[in-house]
């Protein structure tokens, strides 16, 4: 793969998934049937607001489903990855692996210069 096509491949990565926080959310959700918001907060290290914002973007993109309810008087938010979300994550992983595989080793890049 030459440099322009490598750049093209990087640019073609799904930006919705590529953002580290959203990638992390999807990586957690893909390994469970349903995940409570509190667990995501625990493992991601993100603030509630930040996490909500990323979840909102993923929901708008149709990659996750958000279910809001109450447990007693406590609000409860549960998330689930959709079939489109699973596919997007799998595609992203495949594309990223291809991009990384095609990258020249640092020594090779220096010699070319």
């Amino acid at each position: 793969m030459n440099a322009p096509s490598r750049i093209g491949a990087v640019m073609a990565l799904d930006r919705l998934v590529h953002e580290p926080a959203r990638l992390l959310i999807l990586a957690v959700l893909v390994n469970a049937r349903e995940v409570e918001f509190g667990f995501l907060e625990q493992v991601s290290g993100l603030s509630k607001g930040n996490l909500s914002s990323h979840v909102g973007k993923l929901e708008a993109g149709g990659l996750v489903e958000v279910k809001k309810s109450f447990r007693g008087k406590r609000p409860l938010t549960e998330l689930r990855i959709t079939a489109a979300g699973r596919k997007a994550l799998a595609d992203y992983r495949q594309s990223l692996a291809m991009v990384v595989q095609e990258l020249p080793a640092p020594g090779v890049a220096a010699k070319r210069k």
Partner: protein
Amino acid sequence: MREKLDELESLTREYARYSRSAGGLSSVLGGACCLLAYLLGGLLPPTPALRIVLVALPLTWLLARRGMERHYYQRFGHVEEQEGAVERRTHRLCIGAALLVAVSVTVSALSHGARLSMGVVAYLALAWLLVLAGWRWLRSPLDFVVGTFLFCQAAVSCAGFAYPVMGTVAAGLDPPMALLALLFPLAALLLIARGVADHRRFRPLCERLLQLRGKAGAA
């Protein structure tokens, strides 16, 4: 980044096990209840007090299981485990068998014109409760076997019977049933061993999750 994602995925899978397939200390409790039900039902005369104890055992186990899941093993938030195709099929098969038994005992009780005494009503109620409990809470085969025994022992005790314990006079009268009933305490021992192993696995998982929170706080 890749390593962090891999670790998160593995932590999530491991933590999610405690919502379905791993019971930890509640499995130990379930096994102990099963052994207790087997011995009490088979060795003691069927008094009303014993019936109450035998009916209370499966209900206590299910309540304790739910409480421990929510307040101990899933304390960082509920994460439900994904069910594989094999597990789903096995679970459906178990529920199907329990449903078949519940329907057949109900039809048998109603069609033979048996007088619907309190004992018969309790027997039928427990048979149907097993279907509900199996569908909702007894997700692994071992949980299902132990749960089935607890409900069956409670149900038959309401009708004035009990599964015979090996080496007793009752076992001599019905050796095949005594042999079959011996499977349940063996399953209980397996469940206890699995519960202890799951509980040991939970402690490092819990520490790792607490470390993640610590890191997040420091950041």
